[in-house]
């Protein structure tokens, strides 16, 4: 009984441990999918992220501007002509243009408590091509509908104001940003003491629509006022509010637009193109050599020292870490041959790296070709090489192609070997000697250079999808080959 029990336990443990492998895979792929598709960032902003409703005008922005909301302060800066580009606002590299319908220009500027600037007021709307102006924003009466290609922008114009004592730094503690829920609780006096929010020990006192003096004279007091009112107050502080911004991380636009300024802006189209060019080069270089070696080992090599040496060479080459390939590529292709950081240096390095993979799988396929057919061809008078080209290689093509596809999959995901060989320009490579950047390496550089990690995830999603396609294609081909084989 004891043996039977331990047998059962052991077998169940084996199953559980094996299942862990699958669990890990699901977690990784799932997480990648999730982070790659949607981004969700916690930001702390000065205004309450609830849209205000305006009875007079609406604000619209070009869809390409990727604006979702604006806070009152930014809108005011824009109206004052202080915003030139959207780079810091929505991470889009476009010049900002403001258009104000003359019918609402007075209301707009009074809402923003600043002087009218004539240059933004539309004189002749037919002269403006709104759709083409990717950084365009327009203020229209609510009776008008948005130009095509534009969508409406939420305006947040409420701030949380508090007495100065609430935000003071006491014993290394200072109140941080508050969430919308906490604001509600403060409104309903559900929070007894500011110190539960990491503030000083004071009782919160919520005053609806307070005036400056009410706030200044009441320690612990808090109110919600319009940003415009706040801008004229002096003796009060604001609390930052937590805003979760989420949206689609990946889009057709992202995939099809070029990368700009080392990947800080734009999409990854140019990088994908570079990757494809590199793959093409790698296949071009490594296939003849790899096939040649495989044919030699399978059809020509005799048991002897030369064959052993060649096989050992292939095995050793397969074990060299990618970083060392990178160093080798740097010394030989970048420096010695003088090609500098370029597409060709990187492609050559990768070709050498995947050589063993191609050789091994090709040799296996070639070995499994029916030897009788080979004899028949020789018996009809064909030479060895003629037989190889006409009979052997066509018969082994499924296995050979599978091997190439798998090797390409490996090259696609390679980073360390490319960091010191291929360069880092995000432009589409114009010549073999152009510095260029490819997908996997781009993800690495994005992280290392501190760019948006959401960007890294979306690029990673593209990479993993490519890899999955490659793997399934290779498997399908391999199975087809097995079925057709004798």
């Amino acid at each position, binding site marked *: 009984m004891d043996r039977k029990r331990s*047998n059962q336990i*052991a*077998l169940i*443990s084996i*199953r*559980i441990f*094996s299942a862990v*492998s*699958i669990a*890990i*895979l699901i977690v*990784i*792929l799932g*997480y990648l999918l999730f*982070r790659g598709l949607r981004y969700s960032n916690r930001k702390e902003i000065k205004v309450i992220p609830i849209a205000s409703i305006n009875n007079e005008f609406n604000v619209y922005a070009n869809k390409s501007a990727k604006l979702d909301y604006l806070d009152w302060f930014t809108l005011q800066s824009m109206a004052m002509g202080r915003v030139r580009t959207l780079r810091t606002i929505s991470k889009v590299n476009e010049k900002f243009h403001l258009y104000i319908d003359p019918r609402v220009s007075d209301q707009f500027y009074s809402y923003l408590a600043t002087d009218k600037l004539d240059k933004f007021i539309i004189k002749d709307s037919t002269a403006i091509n709104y759709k083409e102006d990717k950084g365009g924003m327009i203020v229209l009466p609510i009776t008008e509908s948005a130009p095509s290609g534009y969508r409406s922008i939420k305006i947040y114009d409420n701030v949380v104001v508090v007495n100065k004592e609430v935000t003071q730094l006491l014993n290394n503690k200072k109140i941080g940003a508050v969430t919308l829920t906490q604001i509600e609780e403060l409104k309903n006096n559900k929070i007894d003491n500011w110190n539960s929010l990491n503030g000083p020990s004071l009782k919160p006192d919520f005053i609806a629509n307070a005036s400056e003096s009410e706030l200044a004279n009441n320690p612990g007091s808090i109110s919600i006022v319009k940003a415009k009112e706040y801008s004229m107050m002096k003796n009060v502080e604001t609390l930052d509010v937590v805003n979760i911004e989420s949206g689609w991380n990946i889009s057709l636009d992202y995939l099809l637009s070029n990368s700009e300024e080392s990947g800080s802006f734009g999409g990854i189209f140019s990088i994908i193109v570079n990757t494809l060019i590199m793959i093409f080069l790698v296949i071009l270089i490594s296939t003849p*050599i790899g*096939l*040649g*070696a495989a044919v*030699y080992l399978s059809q*020509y*090599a005799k048991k002897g020292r*030369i064959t052993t040496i*060649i096989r*050992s*060479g*292939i*095995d*050793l*080459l397969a*074990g*060299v*870490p*990618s*970083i060392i390939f*990178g*160093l*080798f590529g740097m*010394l*030989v292709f970048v420096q010695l041959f003088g090609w500098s950081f370029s597409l060709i240096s990187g492609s050559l390095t990768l070709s*050498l790296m995947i*050589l063993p993979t191609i*050789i091994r799988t090709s040799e296996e396929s070639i070995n499994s070709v029916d030897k009788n057919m080979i004899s028949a061809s020789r018996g009809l008078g064909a*030479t*060895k*090489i*003629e037989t190889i080209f006409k009979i052997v290689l066509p018969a082994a093509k499924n296995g050979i192609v599978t091997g190439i596809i798998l090797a390409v999959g490996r090259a696609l*995901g*390679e*980073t*360390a070997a490319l960091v*010191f060989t291929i360069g880092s320009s995000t432009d589409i490579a114009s010549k073999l000697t152009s510095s260029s950047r490819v997908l996997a390496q781009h993800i*690495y550089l994005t*992280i290392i250079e501190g760019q948006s*990690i959401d960007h890294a995830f979306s690029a*990673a999603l593209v*990479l993993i999808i490519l*890899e999955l396609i*490659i*793997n399934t294609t290779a498997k399908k081909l391999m199975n087809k080959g097995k079925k057709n084989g004798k």
Partner: protein
Amino acid sequence: MRNKSIKIRKRLESSSRVFLLLCGAISVFTVILITIFIVQQGLPTFKTVPIKEFLFSTDWSPSADIPHYGVASFVVASIEVTLLSMIFALPIALSSAIYLSEFAKGRFAKILRSGIELLAGIPSIIYGLFGIAVVVPFVRNFIGGNGYSLLSASIILAIMILPTIINFSEVSIKAVPDELKAASIAMGATTWQTIYRVTVPSALSGIVSSIILALGRAIGETTAVVLVGGNAPIFSTNPIDMGRTLTMNIITDMSYAEGVHMSALFATAMLLFIFILLLNLIVVAIMRKERLDG
């Protein structure tokens, strides 16, 4: 009708033989060239840096007034990370290998096999990214330290070497003759007893080879570890601390190194190369002993 000259066909035959031999030889040339170039760049280090200091000092400070190039902390970190990853990976990998070879049919086995293949196809940069987003916070919140640590690197590496160990071990386990297993069962042993008393010991040399091969992969991994390991060139045996492996050292400093610093990096590469060569030789020795013992 145009005659195809037999002479041309023969000429093609003999020249193709030479060409194909050259293709085969390219692998050998490449390995030799790699060795020569790396050594050529790395050896000059020892004109200024004594070998003892290089190998045994934990002081790596290339930018100090008096620069020091000691890689001992990196060696320790590399070994630590590799061994830890093996400890994490082994139970899962061996179980999967045993499961796949003993219970080869069935839906779960198919899923397991596909899963392993998929894991093997994930590029190291993606493992690194996953490490930053998931493993580092996990270590930070549940274990300690700031998350970027050798422990995080070990966890990621463990996942990466799973397919290697599983594939090779499975082959070895499958190669154990059925008669041995049948004999064990016939004597009344349970499945588990057969596995750990007969099957695994018989497949041991193959399993050990797979482990050593995986060790070679782990010690040579760069991209994933550099993103989660913390990259602090200090000596520490505590896995929660940040650390830097040999590979991390090379990729981090190479972009700005020059002079003796750069030679030292190549010397680091030499050291890495030697480690991997040793591991490969051990595998070859095991396989040869296996073949001789029959």
